[in-house]
């Protein structure tokens, strides 16, 4: 059974007098432990899909079932609790709280859980070690490089040990070496910790780190590529040719 099931998923926004539909009747299944890249031109609906899966937006139509639960039907507060337990979000521009240190930023999601100060400390230390920033715990975001900030953001995303990590262009603001380090880190989370990773990217080279790539256009799935592990060879199917799984 897939971890994430999208059925006839649509999203409509009002814009002025008219409406826009970034997602239009999408069907998609994502298995647990996958590393999926979402690609497509601007306005194709990839960030909208990411936000729906992360539970920070709601579909206008259709069902979105994650781990057997239709999250589209959860109340606002239950959806927030669900996010706290199940999803880690990595933003393009890191979105760390500037007045908090790296440690405090990573600790933020843990404040929502019933943990002692000591337990929180242990988890934050583990997460910062995992991203290679144990020695930067008392640094403020302004004292870190872009790559380091993004690693802190990744530590914040994994500190609660969520099942799903979503990343919206995680390397979009980084130079090549930093981008490579961040992608290596995400790959490790996927392969070593078995996290399900869903990443939006414009960059084909970044998408190659994923084991599956979905191409969206005008809110619909137009292409589905599966990278063969280590060989770099890619098999491509169109939605009408088979399931996007």
């Amino acid at each position, binding site marked *: 059974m897939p971890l994430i099931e999208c059925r006839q998923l649509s999203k409509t926004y009002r814009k002025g007098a008219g409406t826009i539909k970034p997602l239009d009747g999408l069907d998609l299944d994502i298995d647990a432990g996958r590393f999926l890249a979402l690609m497509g031109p601007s306005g194709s609906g990839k960030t*909208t899909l990411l*936000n729906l899966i*992360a539970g*920070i*937006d709601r579909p206008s139509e259709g069902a979105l079932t994650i781990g057997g639960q239709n999250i589209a039907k959860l109340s*606002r*507060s239950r959806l*927030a*609790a669900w*996010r*706290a*337990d199940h999803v880690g*979000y990595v*933003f393009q521009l890191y*979105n760390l*709280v500037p*007045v*908090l240190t790296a440690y*405090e930023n990573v600790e*933020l*999601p843990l*404040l*929502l859980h019933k943990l002692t*100060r000591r337990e929180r400390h242990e988890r934050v230390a583990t997460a910062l070690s995992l991203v290679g920033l144990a020695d930067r715990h008392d640094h403020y975001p302004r004292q870190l490089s872009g790559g380091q900030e993004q690693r802190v953001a990744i530590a*914040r995303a994994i500190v*609660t040990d969520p099942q799903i990590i979503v990343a919206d262009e995680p390397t979009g603001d980084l130079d090549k070496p930093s981008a490579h380090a961040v992608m290596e880190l995400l790959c490790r989370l996927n392969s070593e910790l078995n996290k399900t990773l869903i990443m939006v990217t414009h960059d084909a080279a970044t998408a190659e780190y994923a084991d599956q790539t979905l191409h969206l256009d005008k809110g619909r799935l137009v292409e589905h590529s599966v990278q063969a592990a280590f060989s770099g060879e890619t098999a491509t199917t169109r939605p009408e040719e088979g399931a996007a799984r």
Partner: protein
Amino acid sequence: MIGPRYVPLVLKQVVRHRVRSLLTVAGVAIAMYLFVAIQTMQRGVAESTQATAADTTLVVYREDRFCPFSSRLPEYYLPQIEQIEGVQSVVPIRVVVNNCRASLDVVTFRGVPRDRFVETIGKGTEVLGGSLKDWQRRSDAALVGETLAARRGLKVGDTFDAAGITAYVAGILDSDQAQDQNVAYVHLDYLQQQTDKQLGVVTQFNVKVDDPARLNAVAQQIDELYASAEHPTTTRSEKAFVAQVAGDMIELIGFTKLLGWGCLAAVLALVGNAIVLSVQDRIKEHAVLQTLGFNGWLIGRLIVTEAVVLGVIGGLVGAAGALTTIQLTRVSFSVDGLSIPIRAEPQLLATGLLIAVLLGVLAGLVPAVQAARRPIASCFRAV
């Protein structure tokens, strides 16, 4: 309201824009300083003028006179008033002030017969330092109210001059009676000799009635007794007397109530403005927190707590500043020898803080609700 683990987050947000927060706290402090100062005046008026069911003192004054210089009554009224049924005791008092106008530094001498002093002062009055015997023994002795002594820096053994009278401080009076805190009690005959050399003339009689229910009846009998005399009288309860004689000043102090409300409105506007600006700066940050799993209700509570912190810091500084000023200066409004006490009472600090908390909650409420209800995805699109 929020768990202790969120407190560092709130405090860091409060000091995020230091200048803005400092200005807000300073504004709140100034407004609360004024508010608490006004409250002390309002309390003083209430204490001096609000009648209670236990009031048993009447003041007999010369009819149509409102100033101690012009109220002159013959001392021989004393035994006649004592004869009236229901009268427990009568004390003739001569009042001399160094300034007949409304002022913050008036010295009021009250001349009372040495054998009737104990009847004059209330039960809640005691002599601190010095002694009553000293006062009774020495003809120029004065028992000085604590407020007056503190304001003038007087201590037992000192000699002081005011209104052309020289008096020796035989003791300091600590009293819960508003009118006893800001006066100097001297011997009646000494005061009569020192002022106009007119023995046998007093300013007023203070009459104790055995039953509060008979207050009005006794007052009426006294006034009827002297209705056609050379010196007719007007008799009122002590608090009604204060309310009438110091009426203009009380009206002015009453007007300051509006200023007090204005101060609170200023606090509300200042804190509200600071929080609205802060929340507008952090739309995306709140969306990030919600993405991490913070629900709207928690975000709202964090914002309200920020407003409360600003309000409480400012309120604490302002209220403590006002009470310290009042404690140090020991001023008291006086007019025509009557005092409206201005006291630094600790419960005013608690009241000020409580109001600061309430205003903080009110000021933070609207931006908190707005931030809590904002859809997350739209926050990222808007920024």
